[in-house]
């Protein structure tokens, strides 16, 4: 526990010194007792940093604080306050600027979600029984996914010791999907031009059996990251969702129902909208198992968005071109599984955000995707997909905005499981 706290707070000291040495405005990081006291007196504000900084970099930083706890033996629930404490101390004492309300929530809540997924992902990569160069490569890869955990392993001499693996290393199921190919995004008239066509890489990790028992938070989770060479930013999509608790575990039957409370992290950047959000979701899942090799499943979710950010036309701030607010959402996911992989997968989600900082507006976001996959061998296949993004922004003091963008993707698929 003392080590976990020291590491979480020490990460802030290191980041502060790094920013003092490298940032374009180092004076913003020369903190003093007076600046801390001023921040306490003045209190939180909504900050105006760039979208990626606030909705990806801050949650990533929160994962460092959270994993200071996880890698020192604390549980998911016990590591939560470390994410909050690390975030709070950074906001009040890591920078001279006033503490940011949105940063605190994004760093804490996003850090918990990303942190638990990175902690478990790194555990599956590392192998405490491996030796030689294989061990070096696995430890290096694990370090990149979970730097704090990697640091602690070096500190404790675990990187070279041969001993039993943790329980997290062997989930009930594990599959990694890598898809790469071509993606094209169209305009509002559904025209697909060459300027929005390029390569796309999509990595998905499915940890744990989504129908297995959830004894601890994130015993099952899905994580997807998409990067592309054309249209919007390089990082186009990042979505993680992990089960926190289940409400009664069903018996194995041909038709099964289950209810899960999940935690979600979202980051999307496309021609129709930018969206970043922290949320919790109540999921109802149903599966029809027709034969040993064929099943059909559906998932319906009701989402409470703790804090979401969506691009907006009339914010009126220097750097920030997006609104912040809480909201609600829902989604439907239908999957036809054949021979243990999703032959056909369709999903549609809708989110509503009520602005509390930025324009006086409400935003509706739609996302739809239909994807077909065929595996030629156990590990190699092809996939094709069609997607759709839409934003409807309703402003009190300005004309409403409606934007949408269709896309198609096609390429090769690699699977390990």
């Amino acid at each position, binding site marked *: 526990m003392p080590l976990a706290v020291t590491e979480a707070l020490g990460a802030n000291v290191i980041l502060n010194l790094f920013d003092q040495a490298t940032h374009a405005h180092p004076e913003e990081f020369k903190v003093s007792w007076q600046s801390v006291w001023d921040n306490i007196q003045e209190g*939180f*504000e*909504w900050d105006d940093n760039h979208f990626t900084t606030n909705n990806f970099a801050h949650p990533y930083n929160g994962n460092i604080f959270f994993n200071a706890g996880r890698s020192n033996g604390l549980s998911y629930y016990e590591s*939560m306050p470390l994410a909050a404490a690390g975030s709070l101390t950074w906001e009040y004492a890591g920078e001279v600027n006033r503490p940011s*309300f949105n940063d605190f929530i994004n760093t804490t809540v996003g850090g918990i979600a990303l942190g638990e997924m990175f902690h478990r992902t790194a555990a599956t990569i590392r192998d405490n029984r491996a030796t030689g160069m294989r061990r070096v490569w696995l430890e290096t890869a694990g370090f990149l996914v979970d730097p704090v955990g990697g640091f602690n392993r070096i500190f404790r001499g675990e990187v070279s010791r041969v001993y039993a693996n943790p329980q997290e290393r062997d989930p009930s199921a594990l599959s990694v999907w890598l898809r790469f190919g071509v993606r094209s995004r169209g305009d509002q008239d559904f025209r697909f031009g060459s300027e929005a066509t390029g390569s796309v890489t999509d990595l998905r990790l499915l940890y744990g059996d989504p129908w297995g028992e959830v004894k601890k938070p994130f015993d099952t989770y899905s994580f997807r990251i998409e990067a592309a060479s054309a249209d919007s930013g390089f990082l186009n999509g990042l979505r993680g969702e992990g089960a926190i608790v289940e409400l009664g575990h069903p018996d194995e039957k041909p038709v099964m129902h289950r209810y899960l409370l999940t935690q979600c992290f979202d980051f999307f950047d496309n021609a129709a909208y930018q969206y970043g959000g922290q949320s919790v979701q109540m999921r109802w899942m149903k599966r029809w198992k027709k034969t040993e090799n064929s099943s059909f499943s559906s998932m319906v979710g009701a989402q409470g968005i703790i804090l979401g950010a969506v691009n907006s036309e009339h914010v009126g701030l220097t750097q920030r071109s997006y609104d912040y607010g809480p909201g609600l959402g829902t989604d439907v996911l239908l999957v036809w599984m054949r021979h243990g992989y999703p032959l056909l997968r369709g999903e549609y989600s809708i989110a509503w955000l009520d602005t*509390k900082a930025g324009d006086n507006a409400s935003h509706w976001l739609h996302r739809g995707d239909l994807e077909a996959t065929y595996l030629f061998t156990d590990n190699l296949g092809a996939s094709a997909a069609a997607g759709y993004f839409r934003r409807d922004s309703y402003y009190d003091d300005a004309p409403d905005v409606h934007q949408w963008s269709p896309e198609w993707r096609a390429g090769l698929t690699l699977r390990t499981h």
Partner: protein
Amino acid sequence: MASRTDIAHALRAGLLALVLLAAPRFAAAAPAWGGMWWSLGGAYSSTKADCRDCEEQEYVDTGSFIGRVGYAVSPRVRLGGEYTRTFRQQTGPDATLSTVSAVAQWNMVRAVPIIIEVGYGISRASYSVEENGNVVGIHRNGIALNLGVGSEWPIGPVAIGPYGAMYVGGLGDVQTPTTVARDVLVLSWFAGLQVTMP
């Protein structure tokens, strides 16, 4: 030169720190967390509102009420719900801030009965503005965040202890007597005593 409010804040923070530092002697007698729990408390609170492009506002001091109920999911972690409300002032601005939140509490080191709390939920500001000579009551809902620290010292069947907390209400745009204040955040500091059962 330090203002009267600065000194008041420093005294409250110092008093809370002193009490928390003295707390470990009570730790051994405190029962381990388990099952249902509830707590009620009262606090001295300092509240101010802030908004985009606004001038710095003064803190307004009032009393406040707090109530919580929940379930301990482990000997170190409690989950629950919380209601708080600041009282109206006898003089000055006619405004109150209420919050309804989901909260998590942690007692990370059993030997040190310091409890930290984080909560998130809905805030509601109620105030009045004058329109055409009439006083009109306005309510504005937003998000609520709270961060607190406290202690529990067993006395008979209950535990009594101090707590301090920061409540933030993100209300969005708010109508004032003269204009619309944009991106309003209300900040309220609580320092008080609570009774917890079991």
